[in-house]
């Protein structure tokens, strides 16, 4: 089953073309990476799929729901982690998870969601501390916990390990990998090519709003006789 189907997607900001007729599909249960430099249009694509930006033209389907017509239905299935997201500073970590969980389901399931979020965040007793006392790594773990605790059918993660040290980044990658085993489809963007090679089943290289190459990381490295994805990208955009 196809989780995301993007066809000829165009996004303009006034006269600026941020995304230029891109098309790709993401299969159910897959980890799909959007790779590209700053300003390439990755975040715009993720924001469109997350229902917070409108399409200029083209179409996007999420689990067969048309994004332009069924954004409310899609919001029940997805979870979005923005690159530089924060949390409400006056809330404690657990209170923040509780606040988010209440939007999805009431009663017993809310409690289960919170406990799952606490488990993923793995902050120990600090989960009961105020968010404004958290380090960057702790904040990111809390937000990953928030994004994945609801068992979304599709998790959209913008630079999930951005700004984290090696240990924290590795732990978050493990959490993401485990999440797909539970049936969640992951769409992520990253600058970290090593992360992409390790995590993604398939990737799309995006540059100046266009997808310039799509495929499995190993197949692409083979195709361009490259040692890593960075070399693949440099070859592609030459």
């Amino acid at each position, binding site marked *: 089953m196809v989780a995301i189907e993007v066809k000829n997607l165009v996004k303009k*900001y*006034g006269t*600026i073309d*941020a995304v230029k007729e891109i098309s790709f599909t993401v299969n159910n249960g897959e980890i799909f990476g959007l790779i*590209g*430099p*700053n*300003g*390439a249009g990755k975040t715009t694509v993720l*924001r469109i799929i*997350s*229902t*917070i*930006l*409108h399409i200029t033209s083209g179409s996007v389907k999420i689990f067969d729901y048309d994004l332009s017509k069924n954004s*409310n239905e899609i*919001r*029940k299935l*997805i*979870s*979005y*982690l*923005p690159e*530089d*997201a*924060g*949390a*409400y*500073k006056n809330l404690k970590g657990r209170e923040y998870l509780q606040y*988010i969980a209440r*939007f*999805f389901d009431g009663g017993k399931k809310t409690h289960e969601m919170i406990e799952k979020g606490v488990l993923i965040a793995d902050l120990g007793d600090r989960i009961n501390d105020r968010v404004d006392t958290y380090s960057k790594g702790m904040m990111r773990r809390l937000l990953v916990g*928030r994004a994945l605790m609801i068992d979304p059918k599709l998790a959209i993660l913008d630079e999930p390990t951005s700004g984290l040290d090696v240990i924290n980044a590795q732990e978050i990658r493990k959490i993401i990998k485990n999440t797909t085993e539970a049936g969640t489809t992951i769409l992520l963007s990253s*600058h*970290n*090519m*090593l992360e992409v090679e390790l995590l993604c089943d398939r990737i799309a290289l995006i*540059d*100046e709003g266009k997808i310039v190459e799509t495929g499995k990381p190993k197949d692409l490295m083979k195709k361009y006789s490259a040692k890593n994805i*960075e070399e693949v*990208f*440099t070859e592609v*955009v030459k």
Partner: protein
Amino acid sequence: MSAVGNIIKKELKELLTPATFIPIIIIAAIYGSMGGSINEIQKEAAEPPIIGIINEDNSSLSNIVNIMLETNAKVVFNSTSSDDIEVGLETLNEQQGVALIVIDKNFTSRITNEEKGNLEIYWIMKGAGVLDSISSSGVEFLLSVINTNISEQLIKSNTSINASVILKPTQRIETTYFKGKEFKGLSPNSIVNMLSSQSILIPIIMMMIIIMAGGIVITSMALEKENKTLETLLTLPVKRTSIVSGKIIASAIIGLLLALIYMVGMSYYLQGLSQGSSVLSKYNLVLNTQGFIIVGISLFMALIAALALCMLLGTFAKNYKSAQTLTFPVTMLALIPMFITLFMDFDTLPLAGKIFIFAIPFSHPMMASRALIFGDYTLVFSGIAYSAIFAIVTISIVVWIFNTDRILTGSTRRKRVGRSSIINRFKLRRF
């Protein structure tokens, strides 16, 4: 360029923004228009008051009064019989007059017999604002000068009349007509004082609620953006109307709580200043329970309208700093009707002023109590309806903005990043 010069250049570039200048420009414009209004008021104050005279006495001292009035005021009605009072009042009404002064037929004889001479004054009051009483203050001043002149005359004539009558030879018997009501024994100034002491509370509270609760809404939106929580919120399965109404209702609750605390202190303070509710009740100048409920509804609708407006402004806030700037227009919109309603009555404003004040939804609760006391239900109910429409329209605009890209992108224009620079940055990135 020196280090200091470099820092100055950067600081100026950062600080010289429209956000820095617009509030100052608005303040300057307001002061300018206030200066213009004060000039108009000064001109009005310099104009002789329009009055009518009925002199039933026609003897030495009453003629002093008559001459003084005719010299210093514009007399549009003159008679010698108190039977003409009604005709005189009608003439004054038509001619925008202030007062009809009736000199008692025994005026001179009473004074020479060591009693105070009676001056019956029928005031025609147009508005209950402080500035509305300027013309009546002119007549008040004239009457005090008349007293002094009669005293001088009595002293010059070496009379044996007792000192208290010489020092204050006249006494006023006053009746004021205002908005269809008759107030026996009250002058316009005393009515203005009583009403302003009673109706000052709501404008001040309204202004405080708007400034405080409005600031909360704008800051809340700014912090959602600054803390990067808005993007997450917008992807949750929650309707945009729920986000907007949730924020507005929470701020309204906080605003009302703050108002309650403020009101307790203010009411004690004003009790000390006011002339007491018994005087007001005697002249039926107090609100009944129904009136208080209507004022409460007006206050609530204006608060919702204010918070909806703040929410709209909040969508433009990028961070906490810009939120502080955006609270300024709301503060001004709260201050303007507060001052205007304190100084002038809605009825006495020029048409443009009426439209301006009516268009500000916060004005309505400020005017409501006075309007209800004088039975002007049309103004109050149309104000409530207008505030409700204003709130609905503004909330709809906010929800529409929440459904557009603008809430995140702020502007539709973005700087284009060159292809070569992108590739170079990408190549330089180490991983």
